[in-house]
């Protein structure tokens, strides 16, 4: 479960960024970029795309900075944008791959990935990857994930369960 309220420090950064402070924005960036980028990468499995997605999420956040409620934490706001965009990107690539290579591409991609965890994640659909990443990397509860992705809680739970089962199976097969 992530913090419901922002720290005093984060509130100050957001206030400063709203007033145009580059230093405060930099502090926000340094606090949130690594996880937003990592989350996007674990969903799309493409570093350049993850960079674009996380960067676009930050830019979108900046565009809406004036409307941001400082009483709420910045992270979930950013993660919602980044993860939803990552799912869209991964879906569209999957669709292209199916058209171009009759479904072989996703499997090829998975085999190319050297890291065992990433290779195992690649066997999941983008939607399953996203809930795993939100739950286990970013620490959101199933209820929070349901809100972030606009899904029923039961769907989140079933995706988590199925995702973890697939991961376990993949990792044990690799071993």
């Amino acid at each position, binding site marked *: 479960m992530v913090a419901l309220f922002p720290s005093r420090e984060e509130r100050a950064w957001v206030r400063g960024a709203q007033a145009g402070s580059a230093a405060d924005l930099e502090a926000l960036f340094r606090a949130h970029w690594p996880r937003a980028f990592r989350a996007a990468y674990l969903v799309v499995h493409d570093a350049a795309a993850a960079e674009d997605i996380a960067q676009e999420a*930050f830019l979108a956040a900046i565009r809406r900075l004036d409307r941001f409620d400082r009483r709420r934490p910045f992270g979930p706001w950013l993660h919602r944008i980044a993860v939803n*965009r990552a799912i869209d990107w991964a879906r569209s690539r999957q669709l292209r791959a199916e058209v171009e290579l009759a479904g072989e591409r996703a499997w090829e991609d998975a085999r190319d990935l050297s890291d065992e965890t990433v290779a195992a994640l690649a066997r999941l659909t983008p939607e399953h990857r996203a809930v795993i990443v939100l739950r286990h*990397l970013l620490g959101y509860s199933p209820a929070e994930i349901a809100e972030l992705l606009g899904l029923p809680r039961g769907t989140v739970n079933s995706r988590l369960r199925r995702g973890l089962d697939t991961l376990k199976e993949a990792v044990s097969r690799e071993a």
Partner: protein
Amino acid sequence: MRRELERVEIPGEAEAAERARRVVAAALAERAPRAAGPARRASRAAVLAAAAAGALAVAASPAGPALLRSVRHAVGLERAEPALVRLPAAGRLLVDSTAGAWIVAADGSKRLLGRYAESSWSPHGLFELAARGQELAALDPKGNVRWSLEREGRVRGPRWSPDGYRVAYLAGRELRVVAGDGAGDRLVEAPVAAVAPAWRPGPGHVLAYAAPDGAVRVVDADSGARLAAWRGRNRPLRLAWSPDGTRLLGVGRSTIDLLTPSLARVSSVSLGLADPGRVTVAAAVWAPRGRRYAFVVHDAARDRSTVFVQGERRARFQGTGLVDGLAWSPDGRWLLVAWRTADQWVFVRVGGAPRLRAVASISAQFRSSSYPRVGGWCC
């Protein structure tokens, strides 16, 4: 599980963070409250991000609103000149119509070079390259063929190297290079994407091209050595080096990436991520000097094209329908906006006070059954 996800190595993680930090900081600087006075430089990212958000409305310059209003709701400028009687700046234009390739002199006179297409200038405007089916030809300004060669595939995108000693072109799916006198034609790479190659200004013969998988590659055209490669999210449709050779512009359907010669990304902006395909980049062209470029974005939902000059907050031109070409005058003071939907050319003064000059019936003036393509405005 968390530890596993946190220890996954991501290629180029630190570099990505640094690039994003710079882009995000520039975007904040752009939205920060402004003091009265001269407009500050806007970042590419901020200008494009505004476009992505659909904020294509023009905050026109003091002299601009009336001009822009006059074009916003009509296709074509009302007071367009019926014929091209002179160019607003020195130099000559190269134009491809269905009748062939044309040279337009500064006084508006036109010369048909022959039934060629895909034309482009040599570095000092002494010759032109043009294609006709499977033939590549080097022509002088009177249309005399200096040399020509034929290859198996359709010839496209011929480009003369900045020092004049090499010509790169596509023949079918092959990237080929020939010496500037037409000798020593050879294959550099195959297959490649149908994107005109781009020579890097500076020493040597360094060439950027697009691979079929959407990667951008940089090679030494003489040795064939691959110098750098990069793959972005979208396939590049146009490649262009800055005049000083320090930046490569990779333009995708709705992305503009700015890369270093080693293909490290300096900035990257995707238009309309939330609504893919709505906002597209129709053209992007470097100014003849310095490191700024002009670009056109088309908003399909509003069927509106807007021309920006990088580093400026205000749009330079906006019109209904499609703008599909841009060309800078050699002195960098005027921008030719090829407004296909209006069948007009609009000359926009970008140096000095804003000014527009339009010329109507472009297709008819070049005896063309379709809207002509501008191949360049040269010295």
